[in-house]
């Protein structure tokens, strides 16, 4: 039997080729909204993204919790639906699924605790001992020994001015992330409550939104909400799965290379890989430089770049397969612009979230424009 999303996909494809709307009773001019072209959607997408990214630093605390809750809800919704199909009352099903998830995550955290504590200590040590100028000169010596043709003033200047602070920022962000992961119990409770709200009152909230819109937008709003939520949930599920798989594989690769702080590096690199086209570059550079500093080996850094590039290729092949293809297509320039905006507004987190946020914005706008073109309201 086809899943609900598959049915939507098929029906959506059918209506893409819908015939032009016939003239209205009183106003005989036929509706032609396709003339607005593709410029408006692109511009609107970038304006929305820019607005979101400008607001990001101001409301980052709330956004992180809401985003985590929505992502978790997208993952848990199919499990809740499965329990409800097994005749379990919905609130009980949500409690059961949330409880099981919390138990699994806590178990993993307890199991990983000694490893995480060691990693935090290593990262903290690295952060304390790293002095930007010394680090830069050490890196330049290593790099120029391996690649003599790079021996120009420009490269040396680049290394001294930019690489060292970048590594320091990366290590600091990784450390803060791991400490927050271990220590922020209140956040877990808040996120769990938000997930419960989304799973339990998500549908009634959608119905209230539909009730509040005027008659002329009624049907369009129903379709917009349904399709947007379905596509965004699917995108989040696929991307989270890919990030987890890539993190595990990269962690294994880094472990085989005897690198310090493998979990932080693997998670960072895997998250950057979710940004298509340029994610590999963004992820590989700081990880390779950090590893070169830690191991004093150019070959290790090269191995890391190779591992990340392989992972990027694997993800691209996986995403372009028939099952996951067509989730969202971003132009390389759109991704580049999103990365620049993300980096300038949100730093390391901005870089990590730019690709997925741009993709989600594009999904919302694509659906909104499809509804606008298809309905007269």
């Amino acid at each position, binding site marked *: 039997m086809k899943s609900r999303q598959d049915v939507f996909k098929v029906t959506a494809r059918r209506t893409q080729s819908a015939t*032009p709307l016939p003239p209205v009773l009183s106003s005989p001019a036929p509706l032609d909204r396709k003339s607005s072209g593709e410029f408006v959607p692109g511009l609107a997408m970038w304006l929305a993204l820019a607005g979101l990214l400008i607001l990001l630093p101001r409301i980052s605390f709330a956004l992180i919790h809401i985003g985590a809750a929505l992502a978790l809800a997208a993952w848990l919704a199919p499990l809740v639906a499965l329990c409800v199909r097994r005749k379990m009352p919905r609130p009980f099903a949500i409690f059961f699924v949330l409880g099981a998830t919390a138990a699994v995550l806590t178990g993993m955290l307890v199991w990983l605790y000694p490893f995480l504590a060691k990693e935090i200590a290593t990262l903290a040590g690295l952060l304390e001992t790293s002095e930007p100028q010394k680090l830069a000169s050490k890196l330049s010596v290593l790099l120029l020994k391996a690649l003599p043709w790079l021996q120009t003033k420009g490269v040396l200047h680049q290394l001294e001015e930019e690489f060292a602070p970048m590594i320091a920022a990366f290590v600091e962000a990784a450390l803060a992330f791991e400490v927050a992961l271990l220590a922020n119990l209140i956040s877990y409770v808040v996120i769990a409550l938000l997930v419960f709200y989304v799973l339990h009152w998500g549908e009634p909230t959608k119905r209230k939104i539909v009730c509040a819109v005027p008659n002329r937008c009624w049907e369009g709003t129903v379709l917009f909400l349904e399709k947007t939520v379905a596509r965004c949930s699917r995108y989040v599920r696929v991307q989270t799965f890919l990030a987890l798989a890539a993190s595990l594989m990269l962690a294994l690769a880094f472990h085989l290379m005897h690198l310090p702080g493998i979990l932080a590096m693997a998670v960072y690199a895997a998250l950057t890989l979710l940004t298509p086209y340029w994610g590999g570059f963004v992820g590989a550079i700081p990880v390779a430089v950090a590893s070169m500093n830690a191991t004093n080996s150019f070959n290790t850094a090269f191995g890391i770049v190779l591992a990340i590039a392989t992972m990027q290729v694997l993800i691209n092949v996986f995403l372009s397969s028939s099952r996951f293809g067509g989730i969202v297509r971003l132009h390389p320039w759109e991704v580049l612009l999103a990365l620049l905006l993300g980096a300038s507004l949100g730093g390391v987190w901005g870089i990590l979230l730019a690709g997925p946020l741009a993709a989600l914005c594009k999904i919302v706008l694509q659906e909104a424009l499809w509804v606008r073109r298809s309905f*007269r309201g």
Partner: protein
Amino acid sequence: MNNHHDAVATPRNDSFWGNIFRKKSDDEADVMRTLEQVPLFANMNDSELREFEKLIHRRNFKAGETIFWEGEPGVGMYIIQAGEVSISKYFPQEERKVLAVLKNGEFFGELALLDESPRSATAIAKETTKILGLFRPDLFSLLERRPRLGNKFLFQLALIIGDRLKHNNSEMQKLRAQLDRSDIIL
């Protein structure tokens, strides 16, 4: 008293505000009564009807207001709780032609429950009309949640569509016979 209230333009009479502020208990009983009359919900007990009642969207349309336009993607079916709805179709060579006028308890747009293909006609409220909408996403969620009930509904829908198909086939045969008897060459 009620008549007096109906005559005065209160927010509840206005179609926009009426869609937001609505007494729930009155509504539930009214919706259940309306659903009982609809052939699609035949052979369903109270608890099953209540399950559908939770999925139903209520809307008030003013006279002359369009419920949906021909050519728009179909989202779901509508049941007339009170009022009249005219179903009309645009023919390129002719004027817009009214195909049917539907009244209380009648339903339309049921094919949109199956797929998103464009609406084949336009539905316009002829007078102030209360409409109940059952949308495809809600039906799919019911099919996932309570497959037996969902299948029961789909079986009824298939029966009704099958009846219509038989009727259309017999009409077509009659027309073909008339055409054969006449000397019209197409």
